[in-house]
């Protein structure tokens, strides 16, 4: 039996997930799925419920959020390391998706690794922010509420964040 069209679209999704740190474009993702860019964007949205551009952006922001939780890197370094070049637009996008600026997010979210040993691939799926187009949209930063980490105080102290 031939593979279904979604298998080719998955190659594009995997490219975004694996190479988000590179200067990827929607045209690169379309090439991975072996479709023309216009046709590809339509088919990707049909299969996965959002545009390839949105998927790539939310993947990058999810990775940035993970780095904010787990490293002490500067916001500029995190921005570049997830494939985004403008710190200004990164901060705006991040604030729109997560409802707070990167530095506030860092202070508010100790690493989940402190409370649960969840495989990295699971973290990637469950912490990818939902797309919010308008600033007025209610902030829904996570698909899943991690709950209150039991080691929060310890983690915050270790990172030197304000209590």
């Amino acid at each position, binding site marked *: 039996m031939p593979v279904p069209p979604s298998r080719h679209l998955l190659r594009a999704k995997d490219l975004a997930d694996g190479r988000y740190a590179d200067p990827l474009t929607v045209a690169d993702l379309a090439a991975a799925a072996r479709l023309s860019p216009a046709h590809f964007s339509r088919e990707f949205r049909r299969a996965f419920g959002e545009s390839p551009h949105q998927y790539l952006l939310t993947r990058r922001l999810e990775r940035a959020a993970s780095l904010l939780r787990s490293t002490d890197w500067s916001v500029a370094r995190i921005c570049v390391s997830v494939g985004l070049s403008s710190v200004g637009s990164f901060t705006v996008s991040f604030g729109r998706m997560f409802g707070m600026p990167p530095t506030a997010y860092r202070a508010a979210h100790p690493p989940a690794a402190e409370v649960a040993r969840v*495989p990295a691939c699971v973290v990637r799926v469950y912490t990818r922010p939902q797309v919010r187009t308008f600033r007025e949209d209610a902030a829904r930063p996570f698909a899943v509420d991690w709950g209150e980490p039991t080691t929060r105080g310890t983690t915050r102290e270790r990172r030197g964040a304000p209590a």
Partner: protein
Amino acid sequence: MISIATTQLWVHDQDEALKYWTEKVGFEVRSDVTVPEMGSFRWLAVGPPGQPDVAIALMAIPGPPMIDAATDDQLRDLVGKGLAGTVFLTTDDFWESYTAMKDRGVEFVGEPEQQMYGIDVGFRDPSGNNVRMANLNADFGR
């Protein structure tokens, strides 16, 4: 004592899956039996050479009349989208396993990453099934 003996992945093409899981991933064939009286159902199972008591059955998506056409389409689509399940592999020598699989043609999704539980990388089989391979830290609690 209960043990896991065989688990199962849906595949779009058993010949392609067999070739991939043996020639690229490096698994061995545990069973490859076609049963004419069962509509030529093919029980195809593979497993890692170092673990003879655990296997993965590579099952063809059955299609009508075993499942209805609409469900068959849904299942094919879900497998193609990579949502039909994940196999988590461990290896005692990550870089040896990774390099050997890469040399044999496994296309990994992204680069290996150091996680708090060990080092970890992922790939997909031709049908879209998600596979992770990690070397877990000695103190990693299962």
